């Protein structure tokens, strides 16, 4: 008996130690490079920050599952690079979803959705598109006008739902302004990225007012009145301040239906001046790219005495061959280089078949522009455009508030449980409370040890588990009481009590762990945190009630040899 007691005591001393060591160790490690802190990682909902879920935008193209997996994998790398560039620690970028087709981004400490979204979404989505020479747009102009008129009726009937609401809201803030600009642009699959000149934002702002006015009273031939023939086939000049309006029209479902099939229209990145008026060129191109940025293996800036600043790019061999075939077919055609939905420069004529290397001519622009472009092309050419499907932004004050409330609830729960246990079981209750204190320690240690993330539902689960943790103790105590009632000595009663309560404890806890495991498998974010704390709590409660409390008992029995009564 004494040997058993000794064994149990040693187990008791072993168990807390093996659990506690990682806590200390981790804390020590952390202390060396960062400030001292609790080794528990807080979830975004407790420390504030952004949670983003990105998914490939398949509205412009379809991908086979194989290509999709590859594209998402590459996109993760790209997004990670960009998030890292924000200089925030403890960010996380990983795939999620049943087919791993989503990218989950977690950035603690950032509350500005516009900024983070911009950073994560900055596309550098590069396409090479053949400019239409067959005047496809001219032939369907009347249909497009009708479409706008039709849509215009809808606009007039329900202005609040059809007009991009951005146009009616405040423009005070530059960020917001940019955002509204993006909204207008998104229809064409791109957005006015930060590459756009600052002046463009101002013109956009002005344009919005006129655009709002125009949408409410549509004119006849709304579409055709906007565009003027440009200086080359497939090029159309649109008065600079009417650009956003045209983009809005292009975004309308009716216009999309009436648009020449297989063609798309992209705005140019740079404006040009003709006769004192600033125009933005628009280009009608084949919707299917002959090449996308996915094929790019390298890009570097250069200056060329005749062409000015250029970005030289290299393609993989396979894509280079494909590109040579494609460009060979289109010799004499114009090729638009579209970056994030904006046509860069005036599309050059394809002189001859281009192979594995080519260049984007930027003309007289500064070399830094070429450097930036080369950088995004190299590090950031996304194989597929992404869009945000889930976004959560939590302010830091809310997180702290949640922690405070959670801790307060935990203390109250602990207090109530202590009162109930001691009130009902007296001495044994105190042993259980001692076990409970260790339980709280173990659970925290387990969470820290497994580097689990503590979320708000997790905190709630923890508080809840305090109430449930004593269950095993209760089961055992009840059993001991029964045995005592049958006239057995405390020592045998305790032994019997533990043995008999065991199957019930195992069965009931295994079933709860199974439920929690399912929850972990199918839950996302905060709910996963809940499942993790629940599992950690159950395991810790098993350890404390079976080993720790039992050891307490044995210690007590050894100290008071031959005790005939047990306060339970």
């Amino acid at each position, binding site marked *: 008996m004494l040997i058993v007691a000794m064994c149990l005591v040693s187990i008791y001393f072993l168990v807390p130690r093996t659990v506690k060591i990682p806590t200390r160790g981790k804390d020590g490690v952390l202390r060396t490079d960062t400030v001292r802190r609790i080794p528990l990682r807080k979830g975004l909902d407790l420390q504030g920050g952004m949670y983003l879920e990105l998914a490939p935008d398949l509205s412009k193209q379809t991908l086979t599952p194989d290509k999709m997996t590859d594209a998402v994998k590459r996109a993760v790398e790209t997004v990670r690079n960009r998030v890292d560039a924000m200089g925030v620690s403890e960010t996380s970028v990983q795939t999620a979803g049943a087919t791993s087709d989503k990218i989950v981004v977690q950035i603690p400490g950032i509350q500005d959705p516009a900024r983070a979204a911009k950073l994560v979404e900055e596309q550098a989505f590069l396409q090479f598109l053949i400019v239409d020479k067959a005047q496809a747009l001219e032939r369907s102009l009347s249909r497009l006008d009708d479409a706008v008129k039709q849509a215009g009726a809808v606009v007039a009937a329900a202005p609040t739902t059809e007009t991009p609401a951005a146009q009616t809201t405040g423009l005070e803030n530059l960020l917001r302004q940019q955002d509204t600009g993006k909204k207008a642009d998104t229809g064409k699959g791109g957005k006015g990225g930060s590459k756009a000149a600052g002046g463009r934002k101002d013109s956009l702002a002005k344009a919005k007012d006129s655009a709002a006015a125009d949408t409410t009273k549509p004119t006849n031939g709304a579409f055709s009145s906007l565009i003027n023939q440009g200086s080359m086939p497939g090029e159309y000049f649109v008065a600079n301040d009417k650009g956003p309006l045209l983009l809005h029209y292009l975004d309308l479902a009716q216009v999309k239906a009436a648009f020449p099939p297989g063609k798309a229209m992209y705005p140019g990145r740079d404006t040009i001046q003709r006769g004192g008026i600033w125009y933005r060129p628009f280009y009608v191109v084949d919707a299917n790219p002959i090449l996308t940025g996915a094929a790019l293996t390298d890009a570097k800036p250069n200056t060329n005495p005749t062409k000015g600043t250029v970005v030289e790019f290299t393609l993989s061999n396979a894509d280079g061959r494909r590109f040579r075939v494609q460009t060979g077919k289109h010799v004499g055609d114009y090729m638009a280089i579209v970056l994030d939905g904006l046509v860069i420069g005036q599309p050059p004529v394809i002189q001859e078949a281009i192979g594995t290397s080519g260049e984007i001519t930027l003309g007289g622009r500064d070399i830094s522009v070429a450097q930036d472009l080369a950088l995004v092309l190299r590090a950031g050419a996304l194989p597929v455009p992404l869009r945000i499907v889930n*976004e959560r932004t939590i302010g830091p004050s809310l997180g702290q508030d949640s922690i405070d409330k959670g801790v307060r*609830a935990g203390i109250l729960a602990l207090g109530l449980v202590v009162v109930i246990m001691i009130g009902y079981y007296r001495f044994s209750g105190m042993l259980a409370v001692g076990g409970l204190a260790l339980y709280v320690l173990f659970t925290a240690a387990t969470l820290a040890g497994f580097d689990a993330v503590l979320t708000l539902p997790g905190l709630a689960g923890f508080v*809840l588990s305090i*109430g*449930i943790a004593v*269950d095993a103790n209760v089961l055992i105590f009840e059993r001991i009481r029964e045995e005592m009632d049958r006239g057995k000595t405390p020592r045998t009663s305790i032994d019997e009590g533990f043995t008999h309560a065991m199957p019930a404890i195992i069965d009931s806890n295994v079933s709860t762990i199974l439920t929690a495991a399912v929850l972990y498998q199918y839950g*996302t974010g905060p709910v996963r945190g809940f499942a993790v704390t629940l599992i950690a709590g159950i395991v810790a409660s098993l350890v404390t009630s079976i080993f720790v409390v039992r050891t307490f008992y044995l210690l007590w029995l050894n100290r008071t040899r031959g005790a005939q009564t047990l306060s339970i």
Partner: protein
Amino acid sequence: MTTIAFIVVGLSVLVVKHPRFSIEFTGGTTIQIQFDKAPDVAAVRSAAADAGYPEAVVTRFGSPLDYTISAQPHSSANGPSRIDSTRVQIEAMLHRRFGDTTHVRVLDSQFVGSTVGDELASNAIKAILISFIVTLIYLWIRFEWRFGLAATCATMHDILTTLAFISIMRLEVSLTVVAAILTVIGYSLNDTIIIFDRVRENLKKQRKESLRDVLNRSINETLPRSILTHATAFAATLALLIFAGAIIRPFAWVMAFGIFTGTFSSVYVAGAILLWIEAKWPRQLSTDRRPASRQGAAGKSSAPRVREAGD
């Protein structure tokens, strides 16, 4: 009987008025805002409407200073937009109406795309079903199938009453509430298992008693444990309800009710169903616990009346 009535009322409420699903399932944007002084709800509502979201739902969230605004993104017909501007628009309008960030602050915002919402909803249903099947399999391995089936029926009862409770309380069904339902399942099973475990043990020991008596005795023997465990679990839930704030409150409500109904079902429903199953499919004589089974079966047939739930 009362629970059946409760379930019927609750589920009819569920059918007549659809449950409030959080935007995690429906897709859309929810913004949690805090004012420096209690605002007029109508003014908040009109601000949301003027921002272009007349259908936005404005609700008070905990204290009189905290509100949430939920809205669906519009012009979704125009193809998927890459980012959600709902928050930005509403926030701008709020600042215009109520002043800068010292007067009104956005504490938390969430946007969920509609496809993701569908996925989350189907995942939630899958999670509940799978946890059901998994625990059922475990029970059938550990106990015999009669016990497993009875425990499952009792748990089913808990899910139905909890759903009824959610619909009657008009709680918003969010992922956290689904987590609470799953926890209730685990908790209630836990409780049922402990009683059944005692039944199993007593059946081995007391061979002369009928199952009905064994069941009755087992429930009585485990009653102190049930009461005490529920007291402590309920105390923890109560602490959450009082202190943990508005975000956790729906979770705490569901848990509080779940603890109640879980106890009820394991004490009354599970036993009654087990008796009913025994009456319908008496134990086979070929089991290894032959003498016990025969006695049990004999005792059973002499007591065909089954205790009803809630008597």
